[in-house]
């Protein structure tokens, strides 16, 4: 039952994901990042950020963009282009293929890629706490057979059984959930760190056919960063006359700022680049870098880069012999597609809003993990846990709907809460089961009701009635109520609780939203009324139990105030404010006399101690009891 991991083996960055609890999840690297640079120092065995950090020190030994050499002939145009861009040595190896040479040792691109895959494997093992031996690895759609073969070999060298090599756009489509049986044509627009790819795919019955691909193998986020850096350097020179182009330290800080500004401008329309003490003027005065960069300016700086992606889109469509209108969905992959101008360009070209619901850096690895899950068998009949679309609850004192299972709770689930009675010697409670988001019971959908009777006579609030909701994976709700005192139990089973049409759920949610204000008023009113009733009840109880401790006058005064409050509660015209006023009046009077009582008690020695103790307990409960409900005191979740 070991897992098959999905690996996005990228040109500039790689990522790993795995199916966990039925969902594909990115595995963080040992360094705590979701992606890592595809950079390798083979002599010391460094991979990722660790290799990148010593690149300047060790340029000849640090291999990057190895994917560009995978399965390529040394004499090919591609390899010649790559050789110009890299600081390490590319040599002609076995069968005329391109290899790299580091400190007199020859490494095949497979061996270098294997180091990247090994890190992916190690990170996954650390995360999963178990051995990982199987993987799905992605490759660009345009990879030919020998390049795919080389990728597979890289996996094997890394100790991975490569269960499948899949196309990056296919993986992205899987991540976007576009494999659900629909026959449609989609475009995958992938603008990553160093390469741009566009693919046209035809989906049908779980089969993905690549109709056409195109792209630019030397275009990506790095080019965008450079544009910003160049602009900063030029502006700074204009302002101060100082050229920072050869100041490595300053350049590093400007690079940080450029990346940050680029990211910020995906959400903000303006950002500031601030680097204090970046250098000194000719007179030795410290100079600071402070610049404003607007989104509009950034878009101007990179406009031609974005335009460069459109031509390949046209060509891909042409190759696929399709019109723009044939494309049903455009999905975005690669960090650069977060840039609003890129999204706008895609939208303008295809005439349709692109789908950007999946994290573009992670989509390919996520898709590979899903494919891995399918192969491992944990996706085929994937245990898609449902959530309950609407809140389930019971009616409590004053017609309030008290939720037990909140909306969007993953099922199966069990929740229980202890309620009590609303009046003395109440012989039975009625459990009215409700569905919906409205705070008042009457506005929600009644699902069923039953009565639990035979409750032993007891003062209000004493009996403990445990109400349990058990909602199983099939949406069958079993509600039971148990009197903890007598052990008596009743239950009801309601079918298809989760089986609501989308329209119905939407309608009920919309209604709740629409009426939110009015509902809140109603609920507040009922809460206040409940609070008042509870207050009347508890205060009368105190008067009855400890009446002899009060002076007759005080007793009368309290009783009169309670009567007023009671009248107010019963009045049809009562409002939240009028109830509040009446309650405040009554409770002030009660408190005043209560206070006097304690004073008298403490003065008249400790004889009365037990009694006053009882009262001191009573007092706070008056206050905190405001949510007392029928058939309940405030519930205590006992689950």
């Amino acid at each position, binding site marked *: *039952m070991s897992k098959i991991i999905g690996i996005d083996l990228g040109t500039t960055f790689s990522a790993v994901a795995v199916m*966990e*609890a039925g969902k594909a999840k990115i595995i*963080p690297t040992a*360094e*705590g990042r979701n992606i890592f640079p595809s950079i390798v120092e083979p002599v010391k065995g*460094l991979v990722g*950020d*660790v*290799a*990148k*950090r*010593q*690149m*300047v*020190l060790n340029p000849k030994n640090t291999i990057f963009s190895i994917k560009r050499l995978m399965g390529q002939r040394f004499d090919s145009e591609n390899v010649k282009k790559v050789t110009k861009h890299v600081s390490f040595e590319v040599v002609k190896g076995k069968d005329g293929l391109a290899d790299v040479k580091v400190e007199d040792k020859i490494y095949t691109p497979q061996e270098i890629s294997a180091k990247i895959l090994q890190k992916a494997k190690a990170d996954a093992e650390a*995360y*999963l*706490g178990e051995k990982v031996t199987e993987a799905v690895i992605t490759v660009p759609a345009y990879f030919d057979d020998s390049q795919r073969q080389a990728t597979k070999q890289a996996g094997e060298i890394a100790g991975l059984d490569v269960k499948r090599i899949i196309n990056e756009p296919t993986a992205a489509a899987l991540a976007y959930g576009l494999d659900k049986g629909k026959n449609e044509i989609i475009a995958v627009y992938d603008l990553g760190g160093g390469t741009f790819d566009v693919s046209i795919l035809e989906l049908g019955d779980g089969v993905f056919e690549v109709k056409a691909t195109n792209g630019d193998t030397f275009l990506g986020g790095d080019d965008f960063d450079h544009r910003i850096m160049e602009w900063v350097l030029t502006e700074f020179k204009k302002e101060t006359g100082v050229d920072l182009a050869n100041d*490595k*330290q300053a350049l*590093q800080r400007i690079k940080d700022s450029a990346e940050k500004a680029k990211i910020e401008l995906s959400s903000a329309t303006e950002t500031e680049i*601030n680097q*204090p*003490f970046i250098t000194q003027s000719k007179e030795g005065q*410290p100079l600071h870098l402070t610049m404003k960069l607007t989104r509009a300016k950034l878009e101007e700086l990179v406009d031609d880069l974005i335009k460069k992606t459109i031509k390949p889109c046209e060509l891909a469509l042409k190759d696929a012999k399709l019109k723009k209108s044939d494309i049903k969905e455009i999905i975005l992959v690669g960090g650069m597609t977060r840039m609003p101008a890129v999204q706008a360009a895609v939208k303008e070209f295809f005439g349709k809003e692109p789908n950007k619901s999946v994290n573009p850096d992670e989509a390919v690895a996520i898709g590979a993990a899903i494919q891995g899950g399918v192969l491992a068998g*944990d996706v085929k009949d994937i*245990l898609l846990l449902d959530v309950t679309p609407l809140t389930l609850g019971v009616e409590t004192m004053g017609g309030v709907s008290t939720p037990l299972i909140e909306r969007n709770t993953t099922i199966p689930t069990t929740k229980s809460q202890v309620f009590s009675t609303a009046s003395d010697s109440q012989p039975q409670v009625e459990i009215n089961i409700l569905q919906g988001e409205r705070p008042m019971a009457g506005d929600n959908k009644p699902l069923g009701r039953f009565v639990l009777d035979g409750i032993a006579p007891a003062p209000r609030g004493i009996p403990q009635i445990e109400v349990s909701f058990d909602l199983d994976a099939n949406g069958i709700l079993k509600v039971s109520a148990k009197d903890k005192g007598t052990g008596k139990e009743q239950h009801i089973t309601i079918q298809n609780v989760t089986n609501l049409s989308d329209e119905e759920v939407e309608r009920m949610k919309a209604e709740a939203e629409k009426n939110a204000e009015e509902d809140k008023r109603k609920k507040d009113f009922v809460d206040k009324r409940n609070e008042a009733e509870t207050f009347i009840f508890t205060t009368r109880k105190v008067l009855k139990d400890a009446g002899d401790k009060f002076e007759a006058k005080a007793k009368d005064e309290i009783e009169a105030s309670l009567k007023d409050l009671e009248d107010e509660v019963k009045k049809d015209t009562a409002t939240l404010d009028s109830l509040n006023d009446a309650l405040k009046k009554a409770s002030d009077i009660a408190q005043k006399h209560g206070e006097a009582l304690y004073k008298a008690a403490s003065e008249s020695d400790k004889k009365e101690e037990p009694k006053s103790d009882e009262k001191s307990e009573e007092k706070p409960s008056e206050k905190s009891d405001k949510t007392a409900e029928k058939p309940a005191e405030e519930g205590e979740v006992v689950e």
Partner: protein
Amino acid sequence: MKKTKTPQPVIASAVEESLQKQLTILDDKFKRALADYQNLERNQHQSKLLEKGKIISKFLPLLDGLELTHQHTQDPVTEMMVKEFKKVLNELGVDLIDSQTGASFDSLTMDCIEVVAGEKDKVVKIIQPGYKLGDVVLRPARVEVGNGSSVNH
């Protein structure tokens, strides 16, 4: 009714077989779910640490700015603020990465931004201090590293 009695054992065993199969599948699913949950729990500690690190990292450039200001102005108030800032970092469990001049370059904790004349593979100058939270490198120390001779570069 009576006639159905004969095929019944066959049905029963078929039913039993299918139930057995279902049981195996369910058992497997249950174990997977349990394993996933345990993994989640185990990784929660680490992911919390990483989240904390991400937040702290956002404040580090502010400290850089203060430190630079102090270096250039020797202003005592700024020095005080630098001290206070570092104290807070310390309380949060953040440690300065040891990248003193003369230390061996280690790409696990350091980032070489320039190679200069100086002792080979040793830190010649710290450009920007690095920090770690436990074992997690929040930011590597940016350093200049010596190359033995100044001829190569």
